Structures are given as C-alpha cells and as structure tokens.
C-alpha cells in the first residue's frame, strides 16, 4: 500500500539533495571545526559551519549578535528561556508567554515557576491570535522576556510578530520568537520585527532531525545552561554536528517559496472537498493568516484517535489534537486556550502538507475520510441535537 504522509508539521521527509550534502560531510569531510589549525578536513568543516551561519544571518537580516547551532527547537528554546532567566533574575522575575506554545516553551516556563519566577500567559482569541492589548497590560517593570511562537503547531495560525516586537521594544523587554514552524516558510527579519532571540529547527522543512539554530542579539543577556568545551561562543558546548549543520544549510538553500504557494492551493482544495462532502465540522485554522501547509478540523461526535488509526489502516498518516490516556482524555491545550469546549477539541484532526503531496493523494484521503467518519458516527452515542 502506498503511504500518504500528511503529518508534515511534526516532521518532514529529508530532501535528496540535503541527504547528499549530509553524507558528504559524514564520509568525505568529517573533521571538526576546532581542527582548523591542524588539518584540511578541519578547515573545510569550519568553512561549512561558518558559511551556514552566514546564510542564516543573511536570511534573517542579522545586523548584530550571533547564530548558534543547536540540536533543534527544544534545545534552542531551553537555552534561550533558561539562559535569560538565569542571567537577568536580579533585574526581574517575570516572563510572558502564550498558552498555545509548544511544550518546549510551556514546560520550561512551568519549571521556572517552580523556581520562583512569575509567568503570565497572554490570552489568545478564538482564532488563536495573541491579544495585543492584554499583552501590553501584562508587561511590568520586572518583566525580563516575552516568548511568543511564530506559527502554531496545531492550527497553523501566524502571530503578528512585528506588532509584538514593537510592543516589546517600546517597553524595553527582550523578545523571543520560536519560529520552528515559521522559518523559512515565512520571512523573518529580526531588525524589522525587533526580535532579540529566534529559534529555528531543520526537520520541519526537509532538513535533518537533531539540528537547529538560534539567533541571539546580545550574548550578554544569557548564561549558558550546559558546560563543557568552548564551542559556539561558549554557549553550546559539544562537538559541532557538521554533517547536520551542512544539511540545515542545504535545506535553507533549496527552500522554494513557489512550493509553499502550491501547498496552499492543495490545502484549499482539501478544505473545499471536506466542506462539501462531510457534515458537522468545525474549521480551527484561520485560513487567511496561517501556515500554508496546516489545516485543523474538528469532526463532531467522533474521537480523534479512532479517526487517525482507521486512516492509518488505509495508508494515510494524520494526527489528532487529543490524547486518550485516562478517563479524562487530554484535549489539545491549543484548542482549549482558543475557547473550544472539550467536545470540540476531541475530534480534531491536523492535516499538514508538504511539497511531496499531490492532488490525487488529497482525493484519496477525502474519500477514505468520508467512510471513516461515517463508520465512527454510526458507532457513537453522540449525535446532532435537532
């Protein structure tokens, strides 16, 4: 059975060109940058790392500060949020984030709460947009960081980063953007957007897993959370993962905005078909201001895990926003924060597309989805109250 993969917001297939680049640095140029004064392999490795740093710097319009390579989004978010709070705790102990962030932000915040920091969660509206008026009100004298994601992992909603950046600058508070699902799909200009810290991860855009980068405007604003060698500006010790850094660079280099536009057409086609062929749905993605590849829909009266498992059996990979592991099934924290009821959140399915998906695949998915929803609705004790 041919598989149809619609879980690209979780991770993506590595592009062949990226794989070739990674292999080259695993098998031909496998030195490390710190051997620059010893041998050619070290020199060539160093060149690759620095040219990738340069590539990212240009892409995000970096004028000051540094790019640091990490093992991905989670580590990047940890280095920034813990690093800033450790360094600036004398100045203040208050941080602001949103309730719909990725767990690598939310659970760091929870950890800091236990350490005595105060965390405010700025409200989001029914479409998932951060309430900018409330954000302004939440900022206090002792606020040391605002951390807001660029793109939401479940609904695809794009936050108004430029506006939030303005507010942060005006109030003189540092601003972190987790752009794990934003860059390079969306333009990031750290100057225009007043971004002090940025998180990037490779595997969301056909790069390898286990590598990412962070932008830091001022290295003096954070303390390292790991100690060891003196790599990456003394902030991220450990041997540089040159092959994966090369892979990250290649994925950025070959990224094509045209693909991103085509994916949107495919997404709109999928949405229209579902709207026309399946009743009792709720669209949780604000189509006009969301990531091209993400579409989140609730199918009423059925539970998400059952939908995805039945779809898996006919070759389609999807995920749901609900995780069933106790009597009180865990509904997506994102959808609940947007004001959806538990009932609305439990049957939510995320379709996330990539450049490898086709129109024929979408036709097949909707056909199978119709059958699945019908079967599960026949089995369900819930139905529409007329």
């Amino acid at each position, binding site marked *: 059975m041919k598989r149809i993969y619609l879980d690209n917001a979780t991770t993506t297939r590595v592009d062949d060109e990226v794989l070739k680049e990674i292999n080259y640095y695993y098998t031909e140029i496998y030195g490390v940058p710190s051997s620059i004064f010893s041998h050619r392999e070290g020199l060539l490795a160093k060149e690759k790392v620095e040219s990738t740093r340069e590539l990212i710097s240009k892409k995000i319009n970096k004028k000051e500060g540094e790019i640091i390579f990490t093992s991905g989004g989670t580590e990047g978010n940890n280095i920034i949020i813990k690093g800033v709070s450790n360094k600036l705790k004398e100045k203040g102990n208050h941080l602001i984030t949103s309730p719909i962030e990725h767990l690598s932000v939310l*659970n760091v915040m*929870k*950890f800091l709460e*236990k350490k005595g920091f105060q965390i405010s969660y700025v409200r989001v509206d029914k479409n998932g947009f951060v309430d900018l008026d409330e954000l302004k009100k939440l900022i206090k004298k002792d606020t040391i960081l605002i951390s807001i994601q660029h793109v939401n992992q479940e609904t695809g909603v794009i936050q108004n980063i430029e506006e939030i950046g303005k507010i942060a600058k005006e109030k003189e508070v540092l601003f972190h953007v987790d752009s794990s699902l934003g860059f390079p799909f969306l333009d990031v200009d750290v100057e225009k957007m007043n971004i002090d810290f940025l998180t990037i991860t490779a595997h969301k855009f056909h790069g390898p897993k286990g590598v990412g980068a962070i932008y830091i405007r001022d290295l003096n604003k954070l303390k390292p959370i790991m100690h060891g060698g003196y790599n990456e500006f003394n902030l991220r010790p450990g041997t540089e993962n040159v092959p994966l850094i090369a892979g990250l660079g290649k994925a950025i280099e070959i990224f094509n905005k045209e693909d991103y536009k085509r994916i949107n057409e495919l997404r709109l086609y999928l949405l229209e078909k579902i709207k026309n062929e399946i009743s009792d749905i709720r669209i949780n993605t604000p189509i006009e201001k969301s990531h091209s590849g993400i579409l989140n829909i609730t199918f009423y*009266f*059925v*539970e998400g*895990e*059952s939908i995805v*498992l*039945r779809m898996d*059996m006919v070759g389609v990979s999807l995920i749901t926003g*609900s995780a*069933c*592991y*106790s*009597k*009180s*099934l*865990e*509904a997506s924290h994102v959808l609940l924060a947007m004001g959806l*009821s*538990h*009932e609305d959140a*439990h049957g939510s399915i995320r379709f996330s597309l990539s450049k490898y998906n086709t129109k024929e695949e979408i036709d097949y998915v909707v056909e199978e989805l119709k059958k699945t929803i019908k079967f599960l609705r*026949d*089995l*369900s*004790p*819930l139905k529409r109250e007329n």
Partner: protein
Amino acid sequence: MSMPYSKKVIELFLNPKNVGEIENPDGFATEGSPACGDMVSVYIKVDKETQRIVDIKFKSFGCASNIATASIVTEMVKGKTIEEAKKITWKEVVDELGGLPPIKLHCSILAVDALQAAITNYEEKMGIQKEKVPTDENLIRKRLRHVIDPNTGKEIIGSGVVKKIEIKDGIINIELNMSELNQFANSIKEEIQEKLKYRWDVKEVNVKFSD
C-alpha cells in the same frame, strides 16, 4: 516495531460486535462523557426467570481501546447471569484482548464500569435497593485500585503512587508520590476525583503532589 495493539484489539476496533441500541432495555447506563472524550453506553435485556443477560448492545465514543474493550465485554457477558456478569474484572477483559498498552488500561475499566452501571440500573428498576455505605479509607483504597498510572500501567494503590489517604467530615485528602510536572499528573488527579466526588457523603476531594 508492530502496532502497540494486539491483533484482537485491532480486529474489534475495525469490526466491533454488538454495536447498537436496544429499545426499552431492562438496564441502561452511560459511563464517561463527551467532555472526558471517552464514553460508553451499554444496553441490556435480562430474562427475569433465569436472570441471564439475553441481549447486550453498546455505543462508544472513544479511541480504539475504548471500542475494542466495550465490544469484548459485551461478548463476555452475553448469556451469563447477572451475578456472574458482576464478577467480571477489567484484568480479565484485558487478558481476553491479548493485552493493552499501559496508557490504555483505563479504557477496560470504563467498559466494565459501564456494564456494572447498567446492571445496577436494572437492579434498581427491579426494586433491589442498595443501602448507603459510608466512605472510609478501605472504600477509598478499593476505588483507587481502579485508577491506572499511565506511566507504568499499574494501579496507583499497589504501585505505591498513593502516599497518604485521609478522610474527615466528608473531606478527602490524598497525597501522591508524584511530581506535579509529570506528564500524567493532572489526568490522575482528575480520575481520583472522578472516582470519589459523587459519593453521597463526600464534600471535597483534594489531591496533593509531592514535589
């Protein structure tokens, strides 16, 4: 690695048995709710002479385990007497399915609870009154043996997750050997409260974590 489910679970998930409703059932109950995201309705028809369950049907809103456990429970008790059906345990249900992942064991409890509630509903209709038993530590322990820790798949009393139980003037205080930051902390807390808060003599259920 194969799927986390046994062949039997998948088979029943794809083709569940005894799906549907019974008109004018002798006993009916729904456990769980759409808000919980897990829900099973059970309908039974009982032969008054023999006290045997002659027909049983279910409807389910939930994950694969929920559908499969509800389906197998109906198969296990069809033709049994009410007294025999009362003795079915969630562990027997899990064995019959060829096992369930630890994280899904609660589904078997929900299915058995729904069956037991349908039997209680039948007995109440028949006028078999139950006296009100007071809630004491023993009863709390017994109930909490039906709460599974998804981290380990073990019930929370036997596995030592429950550190302390106190009951005084209708207020229950329970302390757990678990960090509040644990992935499943909140769901275990909610499940403990769910098991106890509806008792006739319970006013409040507090769950504390040992951080």
